[in-house]
């Protein structure tokens, strides 16, 4: 891919056009990607992707075709797909396109719109679970497309912390693809450093995504194989087009696993704002400076986050696989160079809590606690609760 492009797929060119208008309002997007493109021949494009799948299964092709209607997908740096495609003749959903695009094209980052309730309106998902089952890299309501915080920093107002920064994510995904070349037969857990006692912190539900039998032996190649995990190529005897396709599928799906399953629990890998919530001493000064605290909620390199460099040896080194810097919690929680670990009974606690919906720290009494749907000691989280925004499912709010 030479030129960065955003491709929008919708069954209605009017609605697709409205998505285009929304994101065009953000200058940085136009500067980076140019004018977003509407997929005008969507049925042909889907047909071409299905044909690629069929031909790959029949071992009829060994590379991405250069002359079919799916090329527009190959050229998309960001592919935006609406879930409901009722006006198409083919019985297809946005998720099916996401699957085909992920497995049978060179497309970059996939954003699926309106797949999960409450669908269109901007909302905050109190489960914090992400949607690992989806082949899109991100699932959001279409209203969120116009939120500048989805695309770039700095953040202001409503902006879920678990969103990646879309502009950065496209490059990161390509770097993951490059990093994986020559490593398809590496075991996944070893590649990311989940070895020894670290691997014991991974819950079964997370390991199950990699393999239902022996996750510790699962390689990237086997993961993608249709007889492997069931989370790469799907369906019996489904084949990949070529080695590059295997790499692209592995990079996207394992990236989603890290981003939507491993990181949200914050007890295997921990990101900066959750880390300083537990160990405020890492910010250095005796008194907590709110500006320094909020500066940790950023996707910048750790050197710009203001954290004590003693944590650097515990950094998750495959940094392009996550949208933000993260560290191995298992080692940090035992590291006696950290005040809170050395003197667990004399430590001060933060008066402020991290708000997952605005990426900022706020006084606890001005926030609302909720219990995220995570297999983690750190499922108790907080939101500022912005007026007019939907928070769902409401049952997750603490009583």
């Amino acid at each position, binding site marked *: 891919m030479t030129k960065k492009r955003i491709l929008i797929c919708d069954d209605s060119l009017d609605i697709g056009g409205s998505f285009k208008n929304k994101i065009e309002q953000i200058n940085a997007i136009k500067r980076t990607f140019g004018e977003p493109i509407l997929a005008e021949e969507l049925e042909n494009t889907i047909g071409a992707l299905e044909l690629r799948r069929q031909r790959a299964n029949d071992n009829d092709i060994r590379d991405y075709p250069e002359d079919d209607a799916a090329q527009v997908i190959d050229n998309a740096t960001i592919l935006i797909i609406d879930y409901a495609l009722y006006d198409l003749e083919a019985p297809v959903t946005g998720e099916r396109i996401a699957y085909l695009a992920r497995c049978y094209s060179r497309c970059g980052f996939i954003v699926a719109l309106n797949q999960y309730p409450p669908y269109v309106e901007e909302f905050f998902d109190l489960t914090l679970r992400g949607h690992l089952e989806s082949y899109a890299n991100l699932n959001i309501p279409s209203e969120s497309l116009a939120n500048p915080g989805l695309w770039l920093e700095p953040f202001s107002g409503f902006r879920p912390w678990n969103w990646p920064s879309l502009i950065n994510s496209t490059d990161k995904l390509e770097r993951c693809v490059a990093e994986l070349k020559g490593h398809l037969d590496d075991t996944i857990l070893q590649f990311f450093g989940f070895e020894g*006692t670290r691997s*014991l*912190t*991974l*819950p*079964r539900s997370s390991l199950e995504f990699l393999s239902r039998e022996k996750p510790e032996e699962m390689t990237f190649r086997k993961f993608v194989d249709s007889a492997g995990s069931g989370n790469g190529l799907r369906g019996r005897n489904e084949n990949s087009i070529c080695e590059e396709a295997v790499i692209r599928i592995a990079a996207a799906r394992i990236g989603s696993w890290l981003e939507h399953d491993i990181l949200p629990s914050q*007890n295997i890998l921990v990101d900066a704002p959750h880390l300083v919530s*537990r160990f405020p001493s890492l910010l250095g000064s005796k008194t907590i400076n709110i500006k320094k605290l909020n500066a940790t909620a950023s996707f910048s390199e750790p050197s710009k986050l203001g954290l004590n460099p003693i944590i650097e040896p515990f950094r998750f080194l495959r940094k392009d696989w996550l949208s933000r810097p993260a560290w191995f919690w298992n080692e940090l*929680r*035992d590291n006696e160079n950290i005040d*809170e670990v050395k003197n*667990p*009974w004399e*430590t001060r*606690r933060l008066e402020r809590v991290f708000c997952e919906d605005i990426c900022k720290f706020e006084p606890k009494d001005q926030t609302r606690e909720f219990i995220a749907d995570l297999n*983690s*000691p*750190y*499922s*108790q989280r907080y939101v500022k609760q912005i007026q007019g925004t939907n928070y769902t499912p409401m049952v997750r709010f603490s009583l």
Partner: protein
Amino acid sequence: MSNDLSTFRELVLWLWQTHEKPWDYRNEHAKFIVDSYNLAASSLFDRELEAYLPSESNVSNCFPNNRYFYLTPVTDNRIMVPRIQLKCDFGRNIPEIRCRLELFLLDNNAEVQSLGFRFESPEGKSAQTVGVHHYYHIQLIQPPTTRIDWLPETQPAFPIDADDPVKLLLGLLISLYGLNYIDTILREAYHIRNLGKYISGIRYKNFDVFEWYRIIEIGNPPRHVEGYKVISNLNEFEIFIRGKYQGCNIRSITRSEYDALDRAMRKIYP
């Protein structure tokens, strides 16, 4: 796997499945205690617990230094957050079990305080010595939050009614949650092999319900009119007797004295 080892392991895993996790405590005081010191950070996760418990392939095993198994808070009277840490060696005729029990609780000023105990298996005897701790016992240990220089950590070493690791663990649970907890275990952990056998060997379970023995005396010099075995409410009994025999004296007697009374005089209340 030996019976002791498999039952011990299965019982600990059952406790893990059924006990509240520190991050999910429902009791507000317990939650406050956990949050005060970020105790959840030192909790084991499920696959860690499985790895650090003794097993057929690794009969000698222990928890890492800063990892604990947090149990459901004790909520009778003063709220307490209990956590345990295990070191086990089943490769010995009398398996070695060292179980630290630490309790976190709030004092009257709502400050977090702590206590520590060690539940241990016999510590051995040599040809020369009897072995002062060669029995299942409980000792005090330094509390986790502070150090008490004068704390007697060797004696007293209280004997506990156990002759195997499973009964030692059951004793710990009874000490926290009361004797009725054994009924809960029997009811809910019925699938654990041989557990019933271990529980039936616990003598705590074998105590009879209370009975009191009383004799009713009237007049001066006193004349015995009736002897009673009182099975339930002693206060109710006394009200009943004083209504029946005004001005009487109710005197305690031993069971053998009661049994020696004429059959016609021996009564049972209620």
